[in-house]
């Protein structure tokens, strides 16, 4: 495959990912607004916040001036922390909804270790990006060992932490009796695994591997979109044949059919 074709395809994939992320973000907001309250409303707004962070990162990567800057690096690596916080939230909810509130692979104590480890890894990665000019995909010869370690540690630390989180998520999904949360957590787990794959695949830094990383990135966002839509069973309003509708008498003494309005009222305290 020629370099130009690969580059064009990668750009199209990035564009498609940005569009799908935007759509999923809108769905998340709509879902959050539709829920009255509780766990599901928070889940919907949380996932919308996560998608917003991903969208920022997508847009930054589409604009070379931003993508190859400190701001771009901060946006991308900051998103990693948001992903961890979101996954942590879903795991805790899955644990809550388990009738026996069983712990999952020592997540409760280990999450307090996971956060500082991931945050430290992100900070080191940003520092190494800034220190190795100009945002090279690999450290040039002569780079100090400390910087090389800081550069590569992220590719090990984050996939290991997120794989652990994905396994915990899968077990949480199995244990929760709530079918809605089960399917939400499943899609989220798949999205997380593909996100890890995206990070790992993009390590070589070549154009071909970046293309594959963009493919897994798009599929990951698709699963995130499915996770948003799995927050509630959705129905479709069926336009009824009005001619066949029986009319019913309301307390207001009006004949009511499907296409007539009876007026609404708000009741107070």
């Amino acid at each position, binding site marked *: 495959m020629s370099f130009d074709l690969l580059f064009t395809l990668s750009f199209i994939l990035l564009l498609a990912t940005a569009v799908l992320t935007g759509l999923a973000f809108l*769905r998340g907001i709509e879902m959050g607004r539709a829920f*009255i309250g509780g766990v599901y409303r928070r889940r919907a707004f949380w996932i919308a916040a996560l998608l917003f962070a991903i969208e920022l990162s997508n847009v930054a990567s589409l604009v070379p001036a931003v993508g190859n800057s400190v701001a771009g690096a901060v946006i991308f690596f900051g998103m990693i922390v948001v992903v961890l916080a979101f996954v942590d939230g879903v795991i805790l909810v899955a644990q809550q909804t388990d009738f026996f509130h069983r712990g999952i692979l020592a997540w409760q104590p280990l999450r307090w270790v996971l956060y500082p480890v991931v945050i430290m890894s992100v900070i080191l990665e940003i520092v190494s990006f800034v220190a190795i000019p100009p945002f090279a995909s690999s450290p040039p010869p002569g780079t100090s060992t400390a910087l090389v370690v800081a550069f590569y540690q992220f590719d090990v630390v984050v996939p290991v932490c997120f794989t652990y989180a994905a396994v915990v998520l899968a077990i949480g999904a199995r244990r929760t009796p709530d079918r*809605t949360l089960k399917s939400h957590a499943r899609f989220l787990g798949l999205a997380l695994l593909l996100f890890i794959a995206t990070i790992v695949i993009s390590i070589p830094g070549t154009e071909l591997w970046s293309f594959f990383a963009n493919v897994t990135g798009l599929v990951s966002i698709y699963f995130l979109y499915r996770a948003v839509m799995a927050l509630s069973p*959705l*129905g479709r*309003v069926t336009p009824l044949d009005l001619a066949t509708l029986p009319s019913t008498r309301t307390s207001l003494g009006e004949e*009511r059919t*499907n296409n007539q*309005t009876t007026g609404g009222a708000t009741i*107070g305290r």
Partner: protein
Amino acid sequence: MVSTGVPTLDGILGTDGYPEKSSILIVGPPGIGKEVLGYWFVRSGLVQGDYCLYATHRPVSDVLRDMKGVGISTERVPEWIASSGSPVRCDLRDSTSLSFNIKEAVHGNKERRVRLTTDVLSPLLVLNPLESMYAFWSQLLSDLKQQDSVVFALAEDGMHPPNTLTTMEQLFDGVIEMKLYEQGLAITPLLRVKKMLGLPPLHGYFRFSVSGIGMEIVPHVV
């Protein structure tokens, strides 16, 4: 008729409320606001001097906080059978004692109309086989119907296989469905009356919203 506590819903039913001696099932996904209909039903009963019993798998404090959140005064509260904070404890793993406690509380108030609101149907369905739960609810509802009582139960849509809820719906005199509907990019919470004792099938969807001052239900024109 027994007022729903929401005047617009009374109007929609066309009978000024739920039928006497009936059992009503509210089906909807978690977080959509089924409980709010239950809170207004309880509130209406307390105002009218009915005996109100709330059987819940949640702690009393959680329910009271929710009630306040949707603008319902908690100066007057129902009797509780709850997981904590109530004299009688709700133990989901012991459905026999739960049924006994409910019946005992209801039979102890024969001189008044009884309103029983409960959210234990879904957890019980998760913890027990459908056959035994069918028998449990069938027996409990028919026992409560011997008295002037209205049972108001909540069921979680999306938590059970579809045939489970369809089976349970057969036991109830009225079924109201609350669900999120997809229309283009918009997602709207709508309500519809699937069946109601003594009423012809009611077609049409109603938009509803809950705020800190009350519940609003308006027809949704397709």
